[in-house]
């Protein structure tokens, strides 16, 4: 399925968007990530986790876009390869659970590599699992972590 309306573009006039992820929750602001063509990856969430004394503690913070990483060419190539696998029929469109869910986490992925953009929405995930689409998240996580490690000189 293709999205209605024009592609979202960054307000700062920078590079065009490549990929966007939205995790929409019932009781909190969405968790969002976006990747630009120049390799910038940004994250917006009001949830922050801390690992203190062997335990995770969760709290809230301002819901603003923050730089998560800057990807090099190799990372962008890997990301685009993962997107090619995910954004294709029959994955495109809205996938709804057959059953009933509490809380609800609706995950939407938008590829701006097409015009108009390609959209995949999985309502009440993981009741609507799609392996190739679900692989996008770990890929992005790993690329962000590796880029961060490289920036810190850990790799």
């Amino acid at each position, binding site marked *: 399925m293709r999205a209605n309306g024009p592609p979202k573009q960054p307000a700062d006039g920078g590079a065009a968007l490549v990929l966007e992820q939205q*995790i929409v*929750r*019932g*009781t*909190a602001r*969405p*968790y969002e990530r976006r990747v630009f063509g120049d390799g910038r990856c940004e*994250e917006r*969430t009001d*949830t*922050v*986790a*801390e*690992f203190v004394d*062997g*335990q*995770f503690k*969760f709290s809230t913070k301002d819901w603003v876009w923050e730089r*998560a990483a800057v990807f090099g060419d190799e990372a962008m190539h890997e990301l685009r390869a993962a997107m090619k696998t995910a954004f294709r029929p029959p994955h495109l469109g809205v996938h709804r*659970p*057959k*059953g*009933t*869910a*509490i*809380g*609800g*986490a609706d*995950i939407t992925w938008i590829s701006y590599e097409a015009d108009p953009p390609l959209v995949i929405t*999985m309502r*009440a*995930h*993981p*009741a609507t699992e799609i392996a190739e689409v*679900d692989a996008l*998240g*770990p*890929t992005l*996580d*790993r690329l*962000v*972590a*590796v880029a*961060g*490690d490289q920036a810190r000189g*850990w*790799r």
Partner: protein
Amino acid sequence: MRRGPERLLPSTTKTTSPTRSDPSRPQSFASQTIELQRLVGNRAVTGLLQRLWPFSTPTDQELYDTAVEEKGKFRAGGPYGPTDYRPSTGFGGFEAKYDAIGSTLAITLRGGVDFRDSMELQDGAAVAKSGDAKVAAAVTAINKMPLDKRAAAVAQFQWNSAEKEPWTERYESQIQSVWSSKFQLHVERKYWEDVGANVNVVVSVTEHIDSKKAGDDHMELVAYKASPGFVGEYGSVDPGIGLGGSGWGSGATNNTMTIYSSDVEGRTDNSLNASVKFQTGSENIDPSATGKLDMLAIRFKSGTGAGCQLCGAAIPGTDAPIELAVPGAPELAEKRATKIKAALTSRGLAASRLTTVLVGGTGDDCALKVGDGVAQIVAAHEAGHMFGLGDEYGTDKGGGTGGTGGDAGQKTEHHDLAQSAGVAGSVFENNDNIMSSGNVVRPQHYSTFVEAINVITSLYDWKVGAPKLVTSPSAATPAGGPGDFKAPAPDDGTRTA
């Protein structure tokens, strides 16, 4: 009822003095009957006439005697089931078996556990496997740690073999504790009211080696590992294709439940508890609390009133009481109590639901407790979906609750079943109900068990509520006592957990 035989005596009969002195005179049927009544008594004649006259309505005594005989056959004909059953709501599944001798309805929920990690290490980086915003936040935090520290943190989101058995035992015991023996059932048929059922809920989940679930498991239980106290974004039951009812194709064994490992304990984000801030040392509510009061008033609005869209009849909600624990010295606390009650009633909450407790101290936070205030065990809520019940929580805009609930006061998916089970009904409302935001099992939550026992026993007159004393019409005292139903505890049909 004695209408039949009595109608044989015309009310206008004048010949009420037939004499034995004139045996040659032809006697009417009525006069012969009266003569017979004089000789052998009314009861004997009535019984004789009922046997001779096939279209007569049976007497109470006959109905009672027939019921005793049929109940004996019914009890001897058991047990009924076990049968895998998907309720008519169209989702979930469980096994139902009724032991008519022991008066026990056994509800069994079987599952195959699919233990899944929420996170893993890839190339030294933590990556999320569950698509959850909180897991994502944890991933971000972990990936800021030095590489050699990450594995230990990721391990909190991964199962180890020693954790699995205690977790499955906890899962089983928590659901059984919430759901078992909350109400009794009985047959609502004349002289059958002493036929009852104690409801025993048994949960059995196992990790299978060769498959995610066995053929007779009612569900695949996907259990994502999370750190203690973690509150996930979802719990869900996803019913596969099925027609409902029992037998092949019913879908009773074709469901998937998804939860987090932490969902077997009470939620740490308990929505039944909240606090509202007063200005320091003042009776005035802090202006920053205005938005929160607006939200709480929407979240806990009454479900009573909207009711049936077709017939217009109001369906009662739970209208859970709201306890306000007001801090401060007595005089200040009294003023604060007046203020907070006024703030909530002006936003639409009924004053009759609000109670205040003056807790003293020097604090400025007023604690609100809705219903029993006990944090929901998500696994027990999801088990309710496996029992075929829909959600009951309200998702009115501005109330801060998402999911597959509905606007307060509208009928839930199991409303009609609840009414069939002798309960007023079921509406969306945020309260301490198990299918709303708490753990309390109320009568409507046994309505799918009633549907199942109706089907397996073919009686179709089962209702929620304790069995009743049945006495012989001919006896001043109960014949044979209160029947042979084994009642575990007094229960008026309205008891809650």
